């Protein structure tokens, strides 16, 4: 589904992605962790071309992203992206947030889109908040609307960039529950997160990044309990202490 082959990216002189090789299969849930500034976000932002990279090959759903002639609209329409800060459109209701892209990108009928939007909102447990504006919702509810917005495009892949990092502790669970359910339904997911409970419960693989390099990959239990590299061990001991 997603194949990175020797991908390199620089921000000026900073080598943010250093020789990334990764293969994510269809239906696989991959958790990416690592210290801040290690390139995790950049890595998943490359998958829907929010970021360009300078060297290497990247295939997403059969399309070659290093080839500049690909249809980006089509690519992005098939990939849901959930941001740390939600980024809902504040002047639209939850339902309008969810139906904007289906109507304008997928070109589906308005009535159909409303039905679809309500269905997706119900799926994240917010059927009763369809008419609410983002400012009227809690952080956890906003993030669930953002997930519904992604799902409304019936994506093949869902990308999550620290989806719970901006949330109050008591709201993290409700967002993770939605993601666990999604993983259970066989969605292909790449999740940047430090939520180890989530990683252990649903991830097929955990990937550890540091300084732009993909340092370690492995099954979650193995990775968290017996990390192979010192850098990973150090990182895990740090996130475990609180």
């Amino acid at each position: 589904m997603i194949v990175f082959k020797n991908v390199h990216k620089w921000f000026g002189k900073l080598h943010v992605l250093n020789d990334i090789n990764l293969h994510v299969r269809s239906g696989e849930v991959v958790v990416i962790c690592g210290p801040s500034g290690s390139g995790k976000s950049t890595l998943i932002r490359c998958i829907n071309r929010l970021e360009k990279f300078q060297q290497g090959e990247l295939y997403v759903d059969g399309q070659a992203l290093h080839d500049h002639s690909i249809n980006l609209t089509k690519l992005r329409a098939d990939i849901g992206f959930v941001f740390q800060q939600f980024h809902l459109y504040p002047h639209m209701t939850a339902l309008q947030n969810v139906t904007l892209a289906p109507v304008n990108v997928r070109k589906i009928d308005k009535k159909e889109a409303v039905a679809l939007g309500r269905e997706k909102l119900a799926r994240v447990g917010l059927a009763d908040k369809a008419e609410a504006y983002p400012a009227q919702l809690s952080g956890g509810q906003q993030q669930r609307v953002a997930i519904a917005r992604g799902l409304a495009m019936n994506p093949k892949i869902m990308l999550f960039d620290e989806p719970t990092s901006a949330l109050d502790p008591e709201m993290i669970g409700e967002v993770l529950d939605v993601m666990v359910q999604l993983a259970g339904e066989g969605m292909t997911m790449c999740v940047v997160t430090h939520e180890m409970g989530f990683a252990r419960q649903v991830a097929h693989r955990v990937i550890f990044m540091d300084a732009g390099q993909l340092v370690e990959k492995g099954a979650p239990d193995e990775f968290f309990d017996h990390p192979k590299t010192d850098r990973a061990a150090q990182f895990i001991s740090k996130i475990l202490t609180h």
Partner: protein
Amino acid sequence: MLINFNFRVIWEYMPLFLEGLRNTFLISIVSLILALMVGILACAARLSRWKLLRAVSIVYIESIRSTPLLVQIYFFYFGLPTLGLRVPELETGIIALMLNSGAYIAEIVRAGITSVPNGQIEAGISSGLSYTQRMRFIVLPQALGVTVPPLLGQAIVLVKDSALLSLISVLELTRCGQELTSERFMPAEGFLTVAVLYLCIYYCLKPLAGWSQKKLIFREEY
């Protein structure tokens, strides 16, 4: 002191004042509409991805904003004819006001557009919306709300700035006060009347500003 204040002469000159008021109003409206067009174009150029357009727009905006309006008016009125371009006073004045306000409006509109957080634009990109769609559905509806109140502020400034056209003998409101001064030597009567009439224009525009603030600004908290 008040005993010397001559109300009769104000009444006598009322037709002149009303003509001045009408002219000030028309000059302001026409200049404002043109300035809006210039401003939006300049803003689009300022945000364009082509370097040359951006450079032209920056030179325009900065040179206008860093020089006095009076100098600009004099340049167009006295300067252009010596370069072989002869334009009547009224048109010269409108062009000067248009270019002057246009530069400020360009910055107001730009502030509105750039006030929309980048993350929302990325969210739009991520769901496959095109540039035009992102502008139409995400950026402009929010930019409009924050842009309209300062635009009305600029409109009020424009009305007051049009007084400078009296210096190139355009018969607008301020010029009427000057006429009364030169013909009858009654500056107090003349300019007080002028001031009151400007106040009337201001109070016609002000409720609009308040209304738009209430209607259009999207508030985060409810």
